[in-house]
């Protein structure tokens, strides 16, 4: 970590080594493992086979926040959909806590980009939805729901319907809903892409605080390099299509120090951000040339 705390590697040559280093640092077994995941899907209009992902290998350890960035169309959303169990895959394996993924399940919570909370449920009923599905008794459910309402700062909005909330509040509600089900891994698909810039900054700081408080294992997909560098312990850079794991950038900043007032002066953050940005831009230019 002498080099500004970042760790840079060309994926095809030494990615595996980096993952091993990660494992050595963290002796626990990984929560999420992806091995040799390759994916093709038929194009919606032409029907041609699109090569979306190529030999993806990654491991997520408990309490770790890993972000995925890459040029658009690099398959990062495809990866998330496969991990969420919403997209069947054939080549390679993906498993959570040792269980191979075969479809959606409550061990993986997803925070979607769009406003995915149900408009016909109040904030409290939305947040408690996962527990309701699992038939958790009402008293316990209400207690847990209140805990997460307070955690994401929606106190006082329990009985509001989603259309009465701002965009940022809807996403807080979604984060709370996912957390309340207590998944092993939380998958976030560009969750702050649709909110305005001011709100986004606040939500990023909030998520950092929540990650600290709940110690959740999070895979965070984003197209914003700044966001990735601000939030992640490790940032995975994907290549242009077909998506390969091109580079892993480590960002070794304690969570307590991560807020937007400090970060802009933080040398580790700046170098990590610039490194990720350079790497992504390289891929974007390849994608454009094609």
């Amino acid at each position, binding site marked *: 970590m002498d080099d500004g705390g970042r760790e840079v590697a060309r994926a095809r040559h030494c990615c595996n080594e980096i993952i091993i280093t990660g494992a050595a640092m963290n002796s626990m077994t990984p929560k999420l493992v992806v091995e040799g995941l390759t994916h093709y899907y038929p194009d919606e209009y032409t029907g041609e086979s699109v090569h979306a992902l190529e030999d993806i290998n990654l491991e997520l350890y408990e309490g770790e926040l890993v972000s995925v960035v890459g040029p658009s169309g690099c398959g990062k959303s495809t990866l998330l959909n496969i991990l969420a169990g919403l997209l069947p895959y054939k080549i390679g394996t993906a498993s959570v806590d040792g269980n191979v993924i075969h479809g959606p399940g409550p061990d993986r919570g997803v925070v979607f980009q769009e406003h995915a*909370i149900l408009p016909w449920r109040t904030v409290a009923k939305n947040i408690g939805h996962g527990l309701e599905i699992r038939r958790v008794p009402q008293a316990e459910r209400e207690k847990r729901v209140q805990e997460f309402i307070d955690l994401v700062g929606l106190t006082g909005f329990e009985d509001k319907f989603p259309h009465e909330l701002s965009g940022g509040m809807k996403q807080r509600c979604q984060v709370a809903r996912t957390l309340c089900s207590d998944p092993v891994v939380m998958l976030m698909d560009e969750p702050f892409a649709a909110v305005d810039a001011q709100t986004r900054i606040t939500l990023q700081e909030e998520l950092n605080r929540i990650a600290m408080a709940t110690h959740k294992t999070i895979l965070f997909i984003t197209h914003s390099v700044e966001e990735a560098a601000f939030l992640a312990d490790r940032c995975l850079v994907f290549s242009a299509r077909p998506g390969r794991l091109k580079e892993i950038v480590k960002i070794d900043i304690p969570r307590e120090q991560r807020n937007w007032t400090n970060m802009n002066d933080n040398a580790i953050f700046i170098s990590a951000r610039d490194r990720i940005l350079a790497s992504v831009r390289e891929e974007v230019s390849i994608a454009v040339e094609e």
Partner: protein
Amino acid sequence: MTTAVGNLSIAVQRRFGRQRLRKIILGSIPFAVMIAIWHANTVFDWLPPVFIPPIGDVWEAIFFLQEDCAGFVALVMLDNSCLITTHVFSSIGRVILAAIVGLPLGIAFGILCGMSRTLSKFLEPVGVFANSISGIAWIPLAIVWFGVGWVTTLFIMLNTIFWLMFFNSMLGVRSVAKVYEESVLTMGGSRWDVIKQVYLPGAMPSIITGMRMSMGFGWRALIAAEMIGGDSGLGFMIFTSAAEFKIEEVFLGVIFISIIFMATDKYLLAPLEKWTVERWGLVWRPT
């Protein structure tokens, strides 16, 4: 004097609310004009009472038809001596029966077809086929099959209600954003959870439109069916009274039909819409 009128007007506005009062008054004007013209016809003798009866005669027809009614029990038992109430109740009864059977069936099949492309490919053509034949066109066939009576009228109504409800629910389900379904699945929800918690409420705007439409068209189909294939009900009453040149009874029947439908829409379907889709913010409504 002016202050008294002013005070009264303010009191009335407070009681009902300005906007609501405006709505009621504006909505009543066409009816008031119609009634005025109707009354003017009697006063100035433009058309003879055989074509347009005096308002008083229509009002009196209620009591005339109800003349032989032997009290409350006979009224509830739909005794043939209580003519007007028996006709009204038998029409309403058929509507309720058709709604209880037809609406849930149409919603259920519509949701299933909205979910499954295969099933919708299987049922949609039949639906288009059935919808192309207007409800009344079935009447002759229904009379042959079921004879004159309530089965025929029920069949005609069900035919109308079911298919309208089917198409509306199906389109409603298809318009529900996929992400809602995905979010319930990723929380460990089953297919059944998705139906109950996503498709049904998500399709609610369409379902309620479907209910309003199918009740409107069903009610019209019922009147037509009763005229030709019924042995009681308002349609039957209108038809038989017209044959006997009792024009005031025809007018009475028509007025009853509209009042009953307006009441159903206002006190049943509109509140349902307010309680669901408006509360959930699924429709925008000018205030």
